[in-house]
Each structure stands twice: as C-alpha cells, then as structure tokens.
C-alpha cells in the first residue's frame, strides 16, 4: 500500500465479514495511480458527504453511439489519476457463463488499458470495466473485439439483453433463454450500438415465472417462460415428500394463491384450469412437480424505474408464445413494437409510459395484436368509453 494514501474513513470498510471493495481497490493502489486517486477522491466524498464526479460528456468509440459512460473528476487537479474515469460496458455472455481463460483475457486487456477495476456485473447485466481515459477507449475496444468481445448498450438504444441461467442449470426453464438472448443480441447489433430510439429499451429473459432476472420489474420487454397445459406430477415423488414429513398441506396447498390444489392422503390433485402458474408448488416440491409440456413464454412490456411517471412493472402483451429457434415470431413482434414506438413515442418516453399515454387499446391496434382478457387484471370500471361504431341516418358507420 502506498504510504501517501491516507483514508481513515474508508479503512473502516476493510473490517467485517463481508468482502471489502476498499481492500480490493487498495490491492491495486500500488500499481495503479487510478485506483489510488479513486480511493483519495472517495475518502473526500466520505468526509464531505457528497460525490465529486462531473456530469459525463460525449465519449465513445468510433462508429458506436453507446457502450461507454463518460466520467470526469470534478477535482482533477487534486485527483489527476481520475481526471478521466470512463466505463466500458462489455456484453456479458448468455447467462453469465464464462471460462477462466476467457475472463483472464479480458482482465489482461483491462490491466493494460484501464484502472484494473470492474463491476461483475452491472445492473443491466454488462461486464463493466470501470475507469479509463478517453485516449484508451479505442485501443481497449480494439483489443476486446480481437478477443471476441463487443460493447453493450447505453443511451437511447437497445440495452444489452440478459437472461437467467435457464436450461443451462435449471429444471424449470420453459424455453431456451440462453439461445434467445444470444439470438436477439446478435440480431439487433445496430440497435444496440447506435442509439436511435426514443429512450433506452431493455430486454430480460427469465425461463419461468420465478423471474430470476427481474424481467417484470427491470426490462422494457420481459420474456418470461410459462406453460399452458397441466403441471406435470410424479405421484410417487409426491408421496415421498409427504412421507418424508414435508407439511404439504400447510406449505404447499395453503400457499397456493388460487387454492386449486387438494391433498388427499399422499396424493395431490391440481385444478389446472385455475392454476395461475405462480410456481410455488413446483418450487417447494421440485422432485415431484414440473411445468407442463406445452411451453413457451409470456411477453411483458414497460417495466422501469420511477423516472418520471413512477415505477412500472411490465404488463402482459403476449400471454403466450411458443419460442423456438430461429425465433422469427419474436423478431417480428419486436420490430412491430419498435416501429410503432418509434413513430409515435416522444423523446425520453419509455415504452411503458408510451403505452399508458396512448392507451393499451391503441397500442395493440398499432402493433397489430388483438385485445385479450389475459392482458388485464380487470376490465375498466369507469364508463368513459370512446365508442367508435355508431349509427347514422344512412346506416352504420365508424369514426
């Protein structure tokens, strides 16, 4: 540790059982002026209770409009090591699977070109290389692409799609999340790298309603695995659970949101017509129960954080779609959505706010989908219907 580094406040964060980011940054402070000045500036933030970063400028790599977040210290004289401190967002792999060797290649590049600090991963899913100078961006990018890595999204573009581990390690996956994430990221390279949308557009893919990527809360478009038919039941395994002492009545039956499970001795009966595919019973008894055989995904639109009309969860636009390679139906849908949003959305209007503004009915019409009762919690309760058909003296009409 450099002896000119005095960070008494941050030093407090080296204590305690949880791994310490301070310790980790310090481990680089000897070789990286950037790491050292980051700690110094952060120490000052801890003293003064405020950040010292300037609003980012327009920096990036040639031909791309996204993937880099510009960042400059507000105190560059005091902390020259972080006078530039831009991040690069690198497309992670589907499901965040890596080999040690592949990751080492990235680390080596980053050791050479940047701060040596990373976020593994960013909240959207990217591998975030945290902190480098403007003049290093292009060389870093070149080195990365040579090893097969590309930048992710930022700004008003398609953001790096992300997906759960899915069929890679999960028995619940109702479609191949890894394959779809790969497919979409490649299909929409232009949209990912060249911001031309009204605002950001995030896609998250979860293989089942457990939604381990938080698609319903954090993605403009959520593609969430689901099934249409009956839950698959292995009666022997049910009996085993019961015999093993699992309180199936209390923990499973009584927690079913629609009360559609009945336990009779060590047999269960599910009224699948009332099952809302919540996953709970399957989660508790994975050896005995699994999603049905008619599998696919529901597609939701519009989730986002609260800026500015309040946070939204995604809302179901396609209650069920079969998902099979080459995923043409998904492409077709995505393109219809983007086209309509592009034409009628306004600047900085996320798709969720857009749908609320133009109304779900108009939106469905715009993208060419029929209204279905699965898209709503309940029909309208107010009588303010914009009737479009009417009768005129001469016969029937439409406004």
């Amino acid at each position, binding site marked *: 540790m450099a002896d000119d580094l005095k960070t008494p*406040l941050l030093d407090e*964060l080296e*204590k305690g*059982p*949880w*791994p*310490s*980011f*301070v310790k*980790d*940054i310090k481990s*680089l402070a000897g070789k990286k002026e950037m*790491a050292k000045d*980051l700690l110094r500036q952060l120490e000052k933030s*801890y003293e003064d209770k405020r*950040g*010292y970063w300037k*609003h980012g400028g327009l920096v990036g790599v040639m031909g791309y409009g996204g993937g880099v977040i510009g*960042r400059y210290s507000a105190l560059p004289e005091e902390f020259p090591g972080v006078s530039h401190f831009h991040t690069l967002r690198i*497309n992670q*792999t*589907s499901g*965040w699977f*890596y*080999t*040690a060797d*592949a*990751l080492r290649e990235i*680390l080596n590049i980053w050791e050479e070109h940047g701060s*040596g600090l*990373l*976020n*593994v*991963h960013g909240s959207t*899913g990217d591998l975030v290389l*945290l902190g480098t100078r403007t003049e290093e961006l292009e060389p870093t990018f*070149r080195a990365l*692409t040579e090893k*097969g890595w*590309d930048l992710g999204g930022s700004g008003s573009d398609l953001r790096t799609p992300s997906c759960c*581990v899915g069929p*890679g*390690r999960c028995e619940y996956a109702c479609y191949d999340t*890894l394959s779809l994430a*790969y497919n979409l*990221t490649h299909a929409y390279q232009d949209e990912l790298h060249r911001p031309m949308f009204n605002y950001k557009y995030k896609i998250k893919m979860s293989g089942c309603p457990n*939604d*381990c990527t*938080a698609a*319903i*809360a954090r993605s403009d478009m959520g593609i969430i695995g689901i099934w249409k038919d009956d839950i698959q039941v292995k009666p022997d395994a049910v009996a085993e659970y019961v015999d093993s002492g699992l309180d199936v009545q209390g923990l499973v039956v009584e*927690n079913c949101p629609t009360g559609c499970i009945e336990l009779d001795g060590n047999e269960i009966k599910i009224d699948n017509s009332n099952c809302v595919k919540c996953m709970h019973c399957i989660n*508790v008894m994975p050896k005995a129960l699994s999603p049905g055989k008619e599998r696919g995904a529901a597609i939701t639109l519009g989730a986002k954080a*609260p*800026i500015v*009309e*309040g*946070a939204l*969860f995604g809302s179901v636009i396609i209650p069920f779609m079969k998902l099979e390679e080459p995923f043409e139906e998904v492409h077709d849908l995505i393109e219809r959505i983007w086209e309509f949003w592009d034409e009628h959305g306004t600047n*900085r209007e996320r798709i969720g706010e857009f749908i609320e503004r133009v109304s779900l009915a108009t939106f469905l019409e715009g993208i060419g989908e029929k209204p279905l009762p699965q898209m709503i919690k309940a029909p309208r309760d107010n009588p303010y219907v914009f009737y479009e058909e009417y009768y005129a003296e001469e016969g029937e009409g439409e406004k």
Partner: protein
Amino acid sequence: MATEVERKTDIGPPHYEKFLHPLVKENYGKWEYHETLAPGVLMHHGPAGDLYTVRVSSPRLVSINFLNNILDLADKYADGYLRFTSRNNVEFLLANKDNIEPLKKEISELGLLVGGTNNAISNIVHTQGWVHCHSAATDASGLVKSVMDELAEYFTSQKLPAKLRIAVACCLNMCGAVHASDIAILGVHRTPPKIDNATLPNLCEIPTTVASCPNNAIRPTSIEGKTTVKVDEDKCMYCGNCYTVCPAMPLADPLNDGVSIWVGGKICNARSEPMFTKLAIPYLPNNPPRWPEVTGAVKNIVEIYAANAKPYERVGEWINRIGWPKFFDLTGIEFTKYHLDDFRHAGTTYRRSLHNRY
C-alpha cells in the same frame, strides 16, 4: 499500436456454448430437480449426472486481483468453468462432489463467504454511488458493505422464513431493484437543484430542461440578459430528472442528502403477484463510513420479520398478512405524513374499505 489489423465492430458477445461445462452441455434442458446441500451449495440432478454449484459472495466492485483469485479456484476445482448470478454472486460449477469442501476452504481463506441460496439474504443489487456516478445522493458500495457486515449471518445460513432481497440505489433513478425488493435503501436529495446560472445557458437547452420536470417546477427566466431557468421550490420533489438533462442543476447537498428505507417489494410470481417496495423510513442521515442509522434500521426490520413471518412468506406477504399498522407497531418505525402517497395514483393507496386492524 502494433500492426494494423482490420478493426472489428458489431460482433456481439461470444456464443455461450463455449463457456458451458461439459456436464452442463449434456444435461442442457434436461435437468430434473435440484437440492440445496448446504447454504450456498446446490446440487442439480440431470440424466448425465449431478452438477454441484458453490455460490460465493462478491462485492461486485472488484479488482483484477480479486477475479484472478476466483479464476484460479475455477481452474483448480471447476474445470475452469464458472458463472455469475443475476445478483452478482460468483458460482463455481463442479462435476466432482469431492471438490466442494476444499473449494469452500480456499474461498474462506480469501475472505469470501459461501451462501446466498434458498431462504437467505443474497447479495445486494446495487449501483455506483460516489465511486462513479455524478448523480449520487449517497455511496452504494459503502452502504452495501456496512449492511452486509451486519447481515452476513443471513447470507451464510438459510434460517429466514423466505428469500430476502435487498437493493441499494444512490439516487431516484434507482439503477437496480429498489422498486421491487424486500428491503431497499435509496439515496435521496431533499433540497431543490442549485442552479449554476453562469454555465447553464451554455450547457443546457432551455426547453428540454423545462420539459424535464415532471411537476412543472422549472420556468425559463433571464439573468443579466441570458436565458436560464428558475425552480419553484414548492413544486420540486427532488427527483433529479432535470439534472440528468442539464448538468448545471446539481442536487447534491451534503447537509440534506441521505437515505430512505423501503420494504415489501418482490419480483417473482410465487404465491403473490410482484409487488412494489413501499416507504418505511423517509429519511436517515448520510453517516459514512458505516451508516449506523441505516444498518440498524435494516437489521431491525430483518429481525422483526424473521421472528414473525411464516415459512415462505416474503416481507411484503408478511406485511400484507399482518397489515401495515402492525408493521409500524412491531418495528417501532414512526408513521408520518410522508408515508401518505401524493403522486399520480395516490388515491388508489387510500384505505377504501372498513377492513382494518386497530
């Protein structure tokens, strides 16, 4: 810059298959069930054999040193394969059950924790804070470290009634999961933007800046012949959207910035539908480096929840069962006018029935 090779663009990420452990490839899409062998240790059973996952804490903001250590362990115990989770934990994928214990030992020697599975508090989804973002009202990494130090026992055990997901975000942009977490910690500003009239006219487009405010608090004005903006302080609710659009309107205010605490959100569809996180504590001071008020408040909520919820009941489900009055009662949190919604759909949060507990 060495020899000139053709510069590649738009290559996208590498194909994931390259990174799949052979056992994963064989069992791909054919997994039958899983078991949790111990906190942080999962076994997934497939026709080609069992896969063992060891989940390890990560501060997410890491150095190449940290990762190099991790990668060495992957080589040594996991045939060089690993993954990260949607909550930023590291997962080692082992074909050999016997590697679990030695791996755990080395992990612990690195000062890392194994856990986060099942009814645990898993890693905190968080953001940049004072480490990188211009917008932050608090630090994220320091808060996470402070909170998880207090709660580490809930990461390494599975003794909670259900999963408990925590998120931290350093400003109202909520880069992460704040709006749908069991417990969320949110950096807040409490004073209107301070307008830098010297730079604003050059830096910002006035109409865009005016339009950015959801509450129409911003009006154009003229100072010394230059067009700038002014803020109607009564209408400002400190959202920071103007600052995102116009750098000359910073909100940072060391005296008043701080942290709010939110509870009861969830994402999964298990049992109940996804729920938004709701306000629990409107304001706690920024008190770095350890934010004792915040860690204390979070720990209190976790412990009251742990003691009172039923199995499989997430924080929000528990509160829905016992009712909000009881939640405030049990936690000792003061109920204030700030808890009463006053935004767009505020009316839908009023108690419009006689269903109440006294």
